[in-house]
């Protein structure tokens, strides 16, 4: 791979950011499993039913393992940060030590809000789907726009080609590039599909025109044959 150091640092930075947020979500899961364990323990008061004690034990283990997962993710982030700093000193300055994987109240609130909206999304999924069917026509128009955009991407009019990123080892530039890559990845994939479609249409068209060309050649040949025998007939 011929990625410049700037690109590598940007990728590592994105990986680090994603790892940190993964650790926060894992901590959240640990808290939820702990809550489940508290409920089961509560319900198991004075009961020795194996299923109930099983639920208590397993939910406790689940919580412990979720905590271990958060720790492992943070350790992975530390290693990635260490590598980043080794290849480009100072590139991962905000490296968070494992301990700081404990999320702030703000982080947890954000997580909860996100999850609630995810749940609402599932609830409204069906009605959205119905609406989406009606939107298909509109989407077709959008794809055409996307196709146009895809062509501009392929032509690449913006940004001079070449090693413009070679010197961008500064961490301020890194994450933006990485984030942009991340954010645009699905779009780019969509564009590729559109490009594929457009390419196949173009191919189809050119095959058609080639066929027409062949047909024309044949016609000409035929007329030639018709015309040629004439003089031959004339001479013989």
């Amino acid at each position: 791979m011929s990625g410049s150091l700037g690109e590598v640092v940007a990728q590592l930075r994105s990986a680090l950011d994603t790892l940190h947020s993964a650790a926060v979500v894992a901590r959240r899961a640990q808290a939820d499993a702990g809550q489940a364990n508290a409920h089961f323990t509560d319900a198991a008061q004075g009961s020795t039913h194996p299923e109930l004690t099983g639920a208590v034990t397993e939910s406790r283990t689940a919580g412990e393992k979720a905590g271990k997962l958060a720790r492992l993710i943070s350790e992975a982030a530390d290693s990635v940060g260490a590598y980043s700093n080794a290849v480009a000193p100072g590139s991962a300055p905000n490296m968070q030590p494992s301990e700081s994987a404990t999320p702030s109240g703000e982080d947890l609130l954000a997580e909860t809000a996100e999850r609630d909206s995810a749940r609402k999304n599932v609830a409204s999924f069906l009605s959205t789907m119905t609406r989406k069917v009606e939107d298909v026509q509109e989407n077709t128009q959008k794809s055409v726009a996307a196709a146009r955009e895809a062509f501009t991407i392929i032509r690449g009019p913006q940004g001079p080609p070449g090693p413009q990123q070679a010197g961008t080892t500064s961490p301020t530039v890194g994450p933006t590039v990485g984030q942009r890559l991340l954010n645009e990845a699905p779009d780019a994939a969509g564009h590729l599909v559109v490009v594929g479609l457009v390419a196949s249409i173009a191919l189809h068209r050119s095959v058609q025109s080639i066929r027409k060309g062949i047909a024309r050649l044949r016609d000409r040949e035929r007329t030639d044959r018709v015309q040629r025998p004439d003089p031959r007939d004339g001479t013989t």
Partner: protein
Amino acid sequence: MTIGDVKATIRKGDHALDNARMSIEKAGAKLADATALAIAALHDSERGEAEQSRQALREAADEVELVLRRIEAAKDHAAAYLATIG
């Protein structure tokens, strides 16, 4: 605690496990994204930090499966108990 209370409490526990599972799945997805990025960025570097990163990412990915299994086991037990008390 009445049977009804016990049932309600167990259902709350089960709901909390659903939340835990959702979070673990999300953490797993984020971890997978981060791993893809990191592996690409590490290339085939043989530096100690690179090898350490790869191993740490692998261990974390393995742990995701283990947590999910424990959550499922707890949910199964809770459901089985609810079934026995009717």
